[in-house]
C-alpha cells in the first residue's frame, strides 16, 4: 500500500505529505508522480502542512515532478513549516516551486 495518494481534478494534482519525506519513502512518491506523466496536468500541489522533515531525496521527488511531468507545470508547496521552507530555500528550489500558505 502506498503512503501517497494523488488526487487529480481539473488539471490540478494534489498530493498530501505528512511526517517525513526522506530516502525511505521518496522513491514511492516518485513512482506515484510517474502516473501523472502524459495526463492533462497543469499544477501539482504538495500539501505540506503535516510535513515535519524533508531530505534531498524528498526534494528530488519534487524536482522530478517539474522535470518529468511537464515544463509548463506549476509546482506548489502548500502550508509548509518555516523549517521545511528553509530547506527548500537552502537548495535554491524556491526559484521553481511556489511556496504558499493556501492553494
Amino acid at each position: 500500500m502506498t503512503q501517497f495518494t494523488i488526487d487529480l481534478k481539473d488539471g490540478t494534482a494534489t498530493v498530501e505529505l505528512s511526517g517525513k519525506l526522506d530516502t525511505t519513502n521518496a522513491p514511492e512518491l516518485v513512482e506515484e508522480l510517474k502516473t501523472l506523466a502524459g495526463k492533462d496536468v497543469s499544477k501539482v500541489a504538495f500539501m505540506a502542512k503535516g510535513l515535519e522533515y524533508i531530505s534531498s531525496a524528498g526534494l528530488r521527488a519534487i524536482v522530478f515532478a517539474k522535470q518529468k511531468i511537464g515544463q509548463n507545470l506549476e509546482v506548489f508547496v502548500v502550508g509548509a513549516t518555516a523549517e521545511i521552507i528553509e530547506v527548500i530555500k537552502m537548495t535554491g528550489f524556491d526559484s521553481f516551486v511556489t511556496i504558499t500558505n493556501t492553494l
Partner: protein
Amino acid sequence: MEKLTLPATLDKFEEMMSFVREQASKAGFEAAIVNKIALAAEEVLANVINYAYPDGGGDLTIETGLSSDNRNFVMTLVDSGNPFDPLNHEDPDINAPVEERSIGGLGIFMVKKIMDDVQYRREGDRNILVMEKKLDVKE
C-alpha cells in the same frame, strides 16, 4: 565518544538516524539544529547504503563526539566499501533553471551548507567522512 555499527542497509536507516538525533540532542543543539544535522546525516548515510557495497554485506559505523577544543560536535562516518569521496563533486548550480538542474550532488551540497567542516579521507580499505558543527550555533 559514542559509536554505532550496523549493516549498511536501508532497514537499519531509522536506527542510524535515531542515534544521530539522540547524540546531537545530547550535545546540546536545539531541535531545529538537530533536524539539520539529521538532514546532513541522512545524505551521507544514504550514499553509503545505496552505493558503498554493490554486492551487499558491509557495515557502516557512526561515531559522534566533541572536538578536542570542545567547540564542535563531530560526526564521523566509516565504511569499508568502494572508495568514494563525496566532496569530489562539483556543487550544483542552485540558480540554474529547473530543466538544467541535475539531481545528483544536491545531498552533499546540503551537507556542506549545514555542517561547518566536512573532510574525507581514505585509510586502508576504509572511507572516513568527518563532519563538524559548531556547538554555539544560534538560529
